[in-house]
Structure formats: structure tokens, C-alpha cells
């Protein structure tokens, strides 16, 4: 069976797990490929206008897959840890998709809800695997292989590789280092989608800056830093962004922070204020927010990024003199 996998949203977080799991059960996992202008325009036409760019991009990937596969894998992520949820759009993703006018192949939509505990989760995994195999043993051995693949992926990221390099097997050109290190914060589907981010990581590296992202940091550090908030955040992935930025703000382990957020993202709009508040003081690390949506022009982004890198570089030079 050909199972379509949209290369968008949580793809950047969990793809190795599901690929190995479904592949181990005999499914042929078909990726939709990197986001292109065409993906975005298809998604924008199909989606309601109020949706955020990443979800519109996801719609585009669904439409690119629809005639190539027997089924499309669209898990419903409710929670990935106790007492925390994912963005409401992930909760409702399989339902929202039904508003697409084009006919889609049948969807596989397991409900991932870890707040309900592991027993419930493994029941979901078993149910999902039953679509492909009747052997419980085979299902769980494929799942274990998936978990190992995910662990390997995480280890690669912690070693400084980005999902773009690991998942898409793309290499960055070696560039002259200037000793500048920039923390890139934001949702993986914004910063690693080369179309949405307008190749931001590549651009920064070509300007001679080293790029650090949340994926390269130790989970425990991020959790500890996020816990400094007086009130716990509801959303797991936003907590990761906050914890990462707080870590940089606290340790000054980067020279500056670029925070990429999408225009219509509700959670982002709230944490942006939290982050700006944290970094407000005179001695704080400089942070620049870059807002992306389907209308964003490349020229404006380049101007800002160049100016930000210039600013950090000139500051460094002045400190040396």
C-alpha cells in the first residue's frame, strides 16, 4: 500500500519514527517533496483564508500527494506529554481537511494523546498497525525500530546537523566562519521549510554565521528554562520555543536571536510578547522577529537579515577594537 506523507508541519519532528514504523509493516511511504511555490499556491486556494501559513502549506502537500497514493497519513496530535497540548490546529487537522473541495484518498488519522497515558497510546499504535498487519508482534517490533530511528535522528540533530541535512540529505556549502553565532527560534515547520523560511539557514551560513536551533539543544535544558515562566504554557511546542530563547537569553551562548513566526499563528502571537518582554533590557541579547506569510517578499526578509547580521558583526568588531 502506498502511504502518502505530507512533508510539512510535524514531519520535521517525527518523520523517522513513522517512516520506519509504516515501512516495517510493508507500506511504501511516499513523501510529497519539498515545498514549492506551487505547493503554497495550491494550499492557499484550498484553505480558509484565516488559517496560518504552515497549515496552508500542509494543504498544498496533501493536494500534491492525492493522486499518487492509496492513503495519506494525517495523525491527530492532541498531546505529546502529560498536561500539555499541541496547537488547536493540530488537534483538529483531520477535521479541517474535510473542507477541501478536491477529493482526497482515504486518510489514516491515529489520535496521539499522551495525556491519556501510555496504555492508551500503545492501543492507538496497535490499531494503526492493524491497517497493515494482523501480527501484534510484527507491529510492535516495527514500532520499536521506529523509536530507534527517531532516537538516532535526535542524536544527529544534537550533534549539530539540521533536519534539512538529515531528512533531505542536503549538504550546506562550507563557508568562511566569522565567529558569529545566531540562535534561530521558531517552529520547525517554519525554520526548516526552505520555502517558508526563504532559505534562512542557508543565507545565514553564507553570511558566515553559525546557526543554532532548539533541536541542537538538550531537552532538559529547554524544559528547565521554560519552567521559569510564572505560569505554565498550555502548548508543548511553544514551550520549546520559549525554553530555547530563555536559555540563550540566560547564557548568552549566541550573539543574537532571530525568531521566525507565521502571521496568523495564535500561539506564536502570544509567546512573541513573552520573548520580547524577557529580552527587553538594555543588556539583553538582540532579538529580531521575522513574520512570514504567503505574501512575504524575499527582499524585505533579506534586508532585515543582512542588517541584523551586520549589526551583530559591527558590535563584535567594536568590542575587539
Amino acid at each position: 500500500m502506498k502511504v502518502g506523507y505530507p512533508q510539512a508541519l510535524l514531519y520535521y519532528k517525527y518523520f523517522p519514527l513513522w517512516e520506519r514504523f509504516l515501512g516495517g509493516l510493508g507500506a511504501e511511504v511516499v513523501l510529497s517533496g519539498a515545498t514549492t511555490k506551487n505547493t503554497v499556491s495550491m494550499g492557499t486556494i484550498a484553505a480558509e483564508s484565516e488559517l496560518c501559513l504552515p497549515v496552508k502549506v500542509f494543504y498544498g502537500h496533501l493536494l500534491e500527494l492525492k493522486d499518487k497514493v492509496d492513503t495519506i497519513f494525517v495523525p491527530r496530535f492532541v498531546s505529546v506529554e502529560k498536561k500539555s497540548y499541541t496547537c488547536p490546529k493540530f488537534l483538529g487537522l483531520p477535521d479541517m481537511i474535510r473542507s477541501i473541495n478536491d477529493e482526497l484518498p482515504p486518510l489514516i488519522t491515529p489520535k496521539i494523546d499522551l495525556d491519556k497515558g501510555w496504555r492508551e497510546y500503545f492501543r492507538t499504535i496497535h490499531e494503526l498497525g492493524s491497517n497493515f498487519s494482523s501480527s501484534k508482534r510484527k507491529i510492535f517490533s516495527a514500532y520499536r525500530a521506529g523509536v530507534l530511528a527517531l532516537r538516532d535522528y535526535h542524536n544527529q540533530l544534537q550533534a549539530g546537523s539540521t533536519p534539512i541535512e538529515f531528512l533531505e540529505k542536503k549538504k550546506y556549502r562550507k563557508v568562511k566562519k566569522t565567529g558569529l553565532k545566531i540562535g534561530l527560534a521558531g517552529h520547525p515547520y517554519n525554520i526548516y521549510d526552505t520555502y517558508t523560511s526563504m532559505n534562512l539557514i542557508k543565507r545565514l551560513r553564507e553570511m558566515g554565521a553559525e546557526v543554532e536551533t532548539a533541536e541542537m539543544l538538550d531537552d532538559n535544558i529547554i524544559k528547565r528554562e521554560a519552567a521559569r515562566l510564572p505560569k505554565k504554557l498550555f502548548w508543548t511546542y511553544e514551550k520549546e520555543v520559549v525554553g530555547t530563547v530563555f536559555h540563550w537569553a540566560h547564557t548568552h551562548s549566541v550573539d543574537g536571536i532571530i525568531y521566525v513566526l507565521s502571521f496568523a499563528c495564535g500561539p506564536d502571537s502570544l509567546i512573541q510578547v513573552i520573548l520580547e518582554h524577557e529580552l527587553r533590557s538594555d543588556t539583553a541579547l538582540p532579538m529580531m522577529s521575522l513574520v512570514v506569510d504567503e505574501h512575504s517578499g524575499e527582499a524585505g526578509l533579506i534586508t532585515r537579515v543582512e542588517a541584523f547580521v551586520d549589526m551583530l558583526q559591527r558590535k563584535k568588531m567594536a568590542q575587539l577594537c
Partner: protein
Amino acid sequence: MGDHIKEDAFLGIDVGSVSTNLAVINVKGEVLAYIYRRTQGQPIKAVQQGLKELESELPGDISILGVGTTGSARYLSGVVVGADIVKNEITAHAVAAGHVAPEVRTVLEIGGQDSKIILLKDGIVVDFAMNSVCAAGTGSFLDHQSARLGIPIEEFGDYALKADEGAQIAGRCSVFAESDMIHKQQVGYGLEEIIYGLCQALVRNYLNNLAKGKDLLGPLVFQGGVAANSGMKRAFEAALNTEVIIPKYYNVMGAIGAALLAHESMMFEERKTNFKGFAAADFNYKTSSFSCGCCENNCEIIKIKVDDKVLARWGGRCGKWELDQANRRRDTSGVSSSV
């Protein structure tokens, strides 16, 4: 002429959406000559005309040792004149402001279609912000209103200064601001109050959009084409309750910054300038565009030629069309596999 010692100088060119500015500075950073003119949608022509005017204004014998370009047409103008350094307008404005007044802490800059705020400390930029897609509150909007009211933009400031108080005008969006202004006219407000009210609305918009969450410390400098409008200066001073300085060369600060950056870069790296000379004003430049079509992104590629020689190409996402980067990327076969 032969035994005359030529003065070393640097040229900066800032081509924006509305104005094209050129400035020549000497090694001490003093302005020798400058030109401010409208771009009128033809950046290449504007640069060439500007070069001509500048040449006739320049005193005695000078030799240009370096050229910098900035502004939204910085790449295009860089190719036209042969720039040694191409920099974004935020850095250029910041460098110029820090040079003219090293003690400056805040730069308020409003140009034709963009506005920015730059915070400095000891002459070094520590934070900045630039308006996003919306051009409400920039020079173009003021231009449009001056045309609608039939008052030359140069006289806008005088009207605003005559008003005792400004009319309340919504400045969040230029479409709403315009309907608000029409309403105020219909109910009988004087032109002076409306124009000053408009300045206040633009300042409010600027401060809400760009200065959000930032501490604006003095000395404050207000530059960019809109600084010519004394009504805007008055509105800024009223809103911030402090004095706002308008530098002498407020409308060509970007060009001065580009010239300073050219000076700096030529000092660090010993090389000869790429400047094509003032003769570049007479070259026959042609631009054209085409869709690449090699992948689904269908990038639009811009090509600039002089006579029949292609000088530069840009606009692609993958970089395969760019000529000036040929030494950086040797493989030009197909779409690059690198990200």
C-alpha cells in the same frame, strides 16, 4: 592640471522607491557634494542623471576611490555604477547617523515607502525595526495627500506649524486615514488642523508599529525624506516630549552611509575600485526578465545588459543564474542540490 593633487573621495548611492540620492565624501567623512532627486520609477535613469548632476557639482579635482550602493535598488544600481560594496539601507542609515552625531541613541527614519527605527549605543547599532508590508505613514502617503489637497508637499510643514491643535485622524491605515480626513474636511475643520492632525496620526502609527516595547533615549535624530516636513518634527516632539534633531543632510543620509561603508571596506581590503566612472551615465543599460521554468518555483529572473553584454542576473531562489557569484559556485549544471 597635471601637477594638481587629486583629493581622495568616496561615492555613496541610495536608490529608494521614491528618491535617488548620491553623496560624495572625502576621507574625513565631510560631504563634498550631494544630489537628491526623484526615482520616478526608473532607477537606472535616475542613477545616471544623478551621476551627471553630481559630476557638474563636484569641486575641482577629485578621484573616487570607492563606491557603495544601498536602498531597495542597491543591486541594480551597484551593477550600473560598479559598486565596491552593496549594503542594506538599515546599516547605511545607522552608519551615517553614528558618523554625523556619535552620541545619537535613537534614529527615526521615514522614507518614501519604508520607515525604520535604529537604536545606537556608542555609535554601534544595538536594535532596529523596520515597517512590514504596510506603507501607511510613509512619504508616499503624504505625497498622495498633498496631491489630493492641492498643496505642494514642500508647504505641508508650514501649514502644520500654523495649527494650534491637530484634528483627530486615524493613522492606522492610510485608507482609513484618508476617509477620516475627508470627513473632517466636510464637517468644517481648517486645512492647517487637518494637516497637523495627519502628521500626529503618522507619528502615532510609527511609534506604535516600530517603537513598541523600546526605550527611546535621546539624543534623537529624525532623518529621511519625510524629515523635510516640519509638521512631522513638531508632532514627534509633542509625542515624545523631547527635542528631535534633524541633521543637515537628513535626506541623503543613506547615500552618506553607503559612502562611509565604501570608505571603510576599501580601507580594510586594499583593492582598486570597480567604479565605472561618471561615464557610466552615458552607457546604454537594458533590463529584461524571464521565468526560469526549471523547477516548480518558476522564479522570475532579472537580466541587466549593457549593449549586448550581460552584466548581471538575479531573482532566482537557487542562485544558478547569478553571474557575479560564478567564482563562488562552480557547478552550474541544473538545479543545485544544496539548500
